[in-house]
């Protein structure tokens, strides 16, 4: 039954898709983007594959582009950093210092969009390299290159902090 399958898909993925949208459009607009992605899925349910998350994230990406176009503005570094900061985990149990957090998020915000997307689709959204490549419309090999480049950049930014031992003072 289509509706039951859709509901199951909803409960399984809506939070992950909303979290994905949150780091692109901010907390206020994220539920609208997620709803729009799921509405696209509902209206063409027969074409949504069983492993629905990559499809939903692709749909969300389309709606995020429309959202940005409707606002007639490109998101700048400061806003990108703000959205990343809003969506990244901030709990007392996170074994990360405030300085590490800021450094990592700044490195993520300032790297090329394609590299950041590749890295976070895998590290945060939990997609495989093949699924992430499909979402970004590139070959898995190119995707791995982007992820490698992004990781290197992130590690380079964090390296001075780990060498000074500040990581021991967790927040």
């Amino acid at each position: 039954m289509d509706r039951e399958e859709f509901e199951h898909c909803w409960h399984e993925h809506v939070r992950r898709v909303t979290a994905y949208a949150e780091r692109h459009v901010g907390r206020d607009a994220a539920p609208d983007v997620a709803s729009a992605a799921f509405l696209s899925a509902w209206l063409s349910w027969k074409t949504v594959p069983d492993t629905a998350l990559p499809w939903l994230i692709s749909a969300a990406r389309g709606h995020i582009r429309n959202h940005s176009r409707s606002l007639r503005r490109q998101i700048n570094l400061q806003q990108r950093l703000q959205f990343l900061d809003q969506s990244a985990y901030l709990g007392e149990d996170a074994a990360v210092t405030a300085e590490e957090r800021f450094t990592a998020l700044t490195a993520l915000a300032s790297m090329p969009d394609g590299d950041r997307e590749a890295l976070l689709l895998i590290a945060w959204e939990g997609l495989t390299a093949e699924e992430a490549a499909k979402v970004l419309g590139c070959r898995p090999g190119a995707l791995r290159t982007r992820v490698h480049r992004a990781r290197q950049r992130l590690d380079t930014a964090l390296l001075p902090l780990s060498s000074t031992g500040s990581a021991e003072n967790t927040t």
Partner: protein
Amino acid sequence: MRDVLNELRPRVERLTRERSVEMLNAVLSHQPPVRRRGRNSVLVVATVLAIAASMLGFGLIIGNDEQESPVTADCTPMIRVDDIVYELRRYEEVNSATPLGQAQLSECEDTRRRSRGSYFPDDPRQKNAWSFEGTNPDRVLGIRQAGGIFSVYIATDATDNEIQRILHELKRSRTPR
């Protein structure tokens, strides 16, 4: 080096269940488009026949109702308990519900011409039906969904006012968490 990126991975519990249900209701309020399998071929045949007829001097024949009518079928989910048929109206988070018995579930047929839409097969699937505190089970029942949410089914003969009243009551009876 510790995996800082993994430590910063967003937790996804931020979206509340209540908000999630609201969003789901909004999405499902849109009916998926009705499939129109085979309609193109019918139109092609009708066009060829019409041209052939006009060439024979009979004038342009416009397709009859049989050829032109698109496949339409209402597949709103329904349940049946003790010969009362209920139709799905919305999804709701309800805290106080009691198991009532087995409900028969409708199936959907919307791919053939002259489709029946929602119907009860001879051997329907069954699920537990639940009644909600303070409501009449002859008028409204629920089927439990994942995450403790209920799909709310209201008797098919209920008026719009009655439907609104029942849904309002259910929303009001929800205890804030």
